[in-house]
């Protein structure tokens, strides 16, 4: 079987909450809306575990569209995505600083 293509490590798992649509990040055994709490997988086994968790949660109708996002771990342990799209997703609309996670979590 061909190897599954994953983004480079370290990674976090991102998805949308099915019921509310909010962007959520995987933590140990669950999800958080606060990206600062996101579980960072630093090795292949941890990344695989995150991916498996996402697939299970999708099947169990908790989340939609789970996928891994490659990050750098910045100041205070905040995972910062390498791609600008995921950075925007982590913050909220750049034209409305009063909305999205940037407003909810004041960063």
């Amino acid at each position, binding site marked *: 079987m061909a190897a599954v293509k994953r983004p480079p490590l370290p990674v976090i798992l991102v998805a949308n909450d099915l019921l509310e649509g909010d962007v959520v990040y995987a933590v140990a055994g669950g999800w958080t809306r606060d990206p600062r709490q996101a579980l960072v997988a630093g090795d292949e086994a941890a990344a695989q575990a995150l991916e498996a968790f996402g697939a299970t949660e999708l099947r169990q109708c908790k989340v939609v569209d789970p996928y891994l996002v490659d990050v750098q771990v910045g100041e205070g342990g905040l995972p910062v995505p390498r791609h600008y799209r995921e950075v925007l997703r982590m913050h909220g609309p750049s034209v409305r600083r009063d*909305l999205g996670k940037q407003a909810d979590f004041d960063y």
Partner: protein
Amino acid sequence: MYRYDEFDERLVRERVAQFASQVERRLSGALTEEEFRPLRLKNGLYLQLHAYMLRIAVPYGTLHARQLRQLAHIADVYDRGYGHFTTRQNLQFNWPKLKDVPAILGLLADVEMHCIQTSGNCIRNVTADHFSGVAHDEFEDPRPIAELLRQWSSLHPEFEWLGRKFKIAVTGATQDRAVLKSHDVGVRIVRDPATQQVGYQILIGGGLGRTPMVGKVLREFLPREKLLSYLEAVLRVYNLEGRRDNKYKARIKILVHEIGIDAIRAKVEEEFAAIDSPRNDVDPQEFARIAAFFAPPAYESLPDVSRKLEQAQAADAELARFVEHNLFRHKQRGYTALTISLKPIGQAPGDATSHQMRVIADLAEKYSFDEARVTHMQNIVLPHVRLDDVPEIFAVLRAEGLGTPNVGLVTDILACPGLDYCALATARSIPVAQALAEHFADPAKQKEIGDFSIKISGCINACGHHHIGNIGILGLEKKGAESYQITIGGDPGENYALGELLGPGLPAELVPEAIDRVVAVYLSQREPGESFIEAYRRLGLAPFKAAFKEIADAVA
């Protein structure tokens, strides 16, 4: 305005109940996301970058005050206090929760609105000239046929699962303000020169997106009673012959391109011949019933000129600018169609707060026979305003941040939501629009430049119509960063044209300066009375490209 009959009412209510049940089944796990996705899309519900997004149909852009107030109420209770008017005359809410959508649909049904077919591979909301019924250059009001098409295409059993989406636009005016040549089908009301009979010219195969195509004439003249049977033939040929192997090649424009307009005409005519019979003609009684809803309101008999407005203009330069740019000549003496710009300098194009929606609703009710229109340029029109009332309306608009006198000018920028909201986008659009509006904010500069359109899309799907902007801006990803390709010479109107590329992509911060250089070429080389697009056609691409290159070279 059209009002629902018992069938419309029942159909919309049944659809709300059906979607509520689908949501329940999704939440219980009876439906997988894969199964649910096409069902939610058929009800206008997307999953975007930050949240769900709900797209509400505004048929041919027409709204009455009660509907606007209900939209404001939904924005406050179920969203974040604002909505976004789109380039297809619809409204989008950016933050609804799935669990609330059935309740929102119920509130919409209360005011004869819905989200049916605002997404998915079906016939979408029919769009129309936003000055329908009031434009001085109009031959016949196209809204009755827009409504007829809405009824025909809503839940049409044969066309519910097309190969790809299908967009129809209609106009009855000399000047094309509905962008017919960008649509899968364009319908223009015309008079047959030989018989003087009124009917339709049918265009087909236009589109923007990754493969822009110019719509072509399929039928020069179609008798009016044949409209639905002929379009049924068009849709049937498309449904059967259009490609389904590749979603990027599944629009009717690709079919027209691949087999040619003559071949598709032959197929449509063959199909039409099989369908055509008096039994399948538009029922004249039903058409008359629909048309009666669009009868002109009870206008007063007024003089052509308003002394009151003239005196107010003389005393208020800002009002004078508003009158110059935001009023459109009405077919009724003493009246005007007044455009409220949703492009205040530095704001997101097309966004309106719930408060602003209520303000517009009040104005529509008090001054415009309870009617407002959404334009594909993301502005709002009050279509039946007495010239005498313009000063009072402007005073309210100015106080509410809605009095920007920039319609048709360089800061009246059309922009899709881009990567600030959209999951498909490759770059942001709104900040680029904001920076450009601020760059060209000086009213004197805007007036000097004159008619000028900038249209911005955040990906190749072209919701921001960049191909047909005098200046088009396309946001892409280049080496892990946002990059903006700029085109010149696009035109959505009678002289329809797709823009040509000026050069390599630029980072966002250089876009205003690059456009400044292009504008400078125009200002220095224009002839008296010549608009930007006219000067471009005369001068050609070369001088603009050379000016652009100076900026592009700086980042190369």
